[in-house]
């Protein structure tokens, strides 16, 4: 009884420590996040309405999914530029299979999803076995994917009004948008994987020092293939959700999404030097970018300005990161 109480107390203390560490690690970005929210709440009464909050959450889901993959890629000193194209491919194919071929919705989703995943697996295999730089490999895959989507759809959006399909984009469960539920589940799973599993530790080891990881008996190839495959899975899933939400598969969808996902990771403290970064930071990065767009929209700021503001914020965040690093001794 007493022992149990002590154990419970220990767990509480550990949880408390965890929260404090989290706040400390993400101090700058959290401050920015809070300041933005407060400012928007004051300037726009709509901002804190339930509708708007759900709207923001639904809008950030795709970026959130993609950022899960990108965070892992960047941790192992890689990058995945092909995610935007995978979004286009899986969405276009799913809509096409349903609308043009009259395929069963579930089957269409499954096949489209798997084709997107295969692109991720290809990225991983090529990077792991040829030693070609991830930037180049995924840049090529980005073009291949985009081109394939345009070829398949003949350059036109493929409309798809099927309730079973659209449910994944615009549906609700218990009043929460389905895409938000999907993203939340993925986020929780991946956070557990990164913090608790062997794979998570191997990931940070490969990113921190590939040579040392090899000498520790970690299979570098396995880690790389897994990371790019997961990135493909998240992108492919996002493509289907996005197509469902837009009632059409668009071959031009997802253009530039990879950059938003990279921005979210970097804002969240993932280091381009490798080996450092947590999903707990990335999620804040995702929200900051999402709220920024939403806020600027609410205030009727021209959307072209949003790019400039986004760029400035990324520069500032990464600069802060460098300042923090330079205080470390090595």
């Amino acid at each position, binding site marked *: 009884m007493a022992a149990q109480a002590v154990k419970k107390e220990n767990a509480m203390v550990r949880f408390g420590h965890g929260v404090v560490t989290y706040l400390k690690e993400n101090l700058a970005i959290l401050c920015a996040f809070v300041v933005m929210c407060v400012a928007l709440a004051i300037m726009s009464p709509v901002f804190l309405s339930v509708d708007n909050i759900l709207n923001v959450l639904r809008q950030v889901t795709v970026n959130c999914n993609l950022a899960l993959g990108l965070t892992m890629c960047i941790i192992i000193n890689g990058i995945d530029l092909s995610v935007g194209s995978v979004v286009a491919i899986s969405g276009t194919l799913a809509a096409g299979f349903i609308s043009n071929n009259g395929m069963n919705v579930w089957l269409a989703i499954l096949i489209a999803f798997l084709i997107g995943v295969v692109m991720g697996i290809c990225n991983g295999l090529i990077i792991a076995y040829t030693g070609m730089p991830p930037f180049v490999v995924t840049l090529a895959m980005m073009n291949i994917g985009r081109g394939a989507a345009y070829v398949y759809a003949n350059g036109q959006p493929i409309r798809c009004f099927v309730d079973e399909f659209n449910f994944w984009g615009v549906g609700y469960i218990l009043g929460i948008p389905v895409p938000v539920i999907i993203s939340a589940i993925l986020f929780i799973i991946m956070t557990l994987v990164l913090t*608790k599993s*062997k794979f998570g*530790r191997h990931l940070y*080891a490969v990113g*921190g*020092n590939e*040579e040392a990881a090899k000498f520790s008996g*970690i299979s570098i190839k396995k880690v790389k293939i897994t990371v790019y495959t997961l990135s493909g899975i998240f992108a492919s899933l996002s493509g289907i959700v996005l197509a469902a939400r837009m009632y059409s598969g668009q071959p031009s969808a997802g253009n530039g999404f990879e950059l938003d996902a990279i921005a979210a990771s970097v804002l969240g403290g993932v280091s381009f030097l490798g080996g450092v970064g947590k999903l707990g930071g990335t999620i804040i990065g995702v929200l900051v970018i999402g709220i920024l767009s939403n806020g600027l929209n609410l205030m009727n700021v021209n959307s072209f300005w949003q790019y400039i503001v986004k760029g400035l914020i990324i520069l500032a965040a990464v600069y802060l990161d460098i300042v923090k690093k330079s205080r*470390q001794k090595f």
Partner: protein
Amino acid sequence: MGKTVLEMKNIHKKFPGVYALNSVDFELKAGEVHALLGENGAGKSTLIKVLGGIYHPDQGQIIIDGKEVKINTVMDADAAGVSIIHQEIMTVPEMTIAENIFLGREPKTKFGTVDFKKMLSVSQELIDGFGLEMKASRKILALSIAQQQMVAIVKAISINAKIVVMDEPTSSLTDSEVDYLFEIIEKLKAQGIGIVYISHKLDELFRICDRITVMRDGQYVGTKVTAETTRDELISMMVGRTLDNYYVRTFHELGDVVLEAKNVKGGLVKDASFQLRKGEILGFAGLVGSGRSELMKDMIGLDPREGGEVFVDGKKVEFHGVTDAQREGLVLVPENRKKEGLLLKNSVGFNLTLAVLGDFIKGISVKKSKETEIINTYVDAMAIKTPSVNQLVGNLSGGNQQKVLIGKWLAAAPKILIMDEPTRGVDVGAKAEIYQIMNNLADQGVSIIMISSELPEVLGMCDRICVMYEGEITGVVDRKDFSQERVMHFATGGR
């Protein structure tokens, strides 16, 4: 032999904690090949870096052609007529021979563009002058290592070098390429150029050098005319220091053979066979590049093995990497802790458990208590001084980093422990602690292979010593026959 071209007098250089050069003198005559000889860490490279303007001496004079010069930068060295040909040849592989020779001082046409025609013709003249058969328009990457070295020499001559320093020039050359290099050196001598020749290979020194200066522990030991000295005399000059007595070791009867290598080949390793017994500490001595680390990597499968067999407890094994070896109880503590050993950006705890994650992680369930137990056990066992197990390893001292590295592999409960330079860059106190731990392990029946370039520690700690030279084991010395001279005899190619 001509007049004196270079004199270095009373050179001092201190690094934090190390007296790298303590009152070193060196003299070079025109048309002479003068060898610098000494063990790793004797101070040869430091002296050359002082001459080349990379390090600034704390004290001392450099006199070239009778005039005192200050060499503060590499450009100063060029201007003073000093040219250093480094071990790793510094050429741009994607450029042509001519472009490399004129790198940074390209001739210009009257329009201000690079005069490629002139560059090519002048380069070709220089190359022909040496009787080399090379086209100046070829790219460096198409050349053999020996040819690249020739280009470096031609470049040195083209900037009117009077003093050419060659740092281990034959380390990656074949026998016929060495002959070729020596012909060129004879031509340089004939032109009155003074050559400083650094090499561990005594045979070469007797072939090519006029005089030999020996250094040890940052000090000048003596200079001998090659014709008047012997191999044995040079070796005793190189190693003539007393053994420190902080080597703790209790010797036992050795047990059965636990590890055997038969005719292992691959990379630098030409042919190596040896046996390791239970509870033994087997030393591997030899010069840098003799293939000791490579032999171990070949056995474990970190480098591709081209031939030979490995046996653990009499059973033939085929390892394809660290994990396979670990399964059979064999682990390797790598040589370069910053590059191959540790994750500096991660914590002490993260590093200590990296090789044994399977012991406390199943899926996504982490047995925190087991993890803490492993970490605490090895922080205590290795006496790692750290404010917390969450401290980043990069913030620890070299000695404590090394202890984390060793502890990480002890956590894997090895039966056979290969330690590559286990005390490199570690202070005296931590060294003694590491020796103590090695002794305890051997007492418990763990078999240890200790690769080390520090002869005193090999002699102090080991039951037997395998000595390697150019990828082969040239001799195995039993404890009763231990002497520095005997090890150096094998390490420099003696049989």
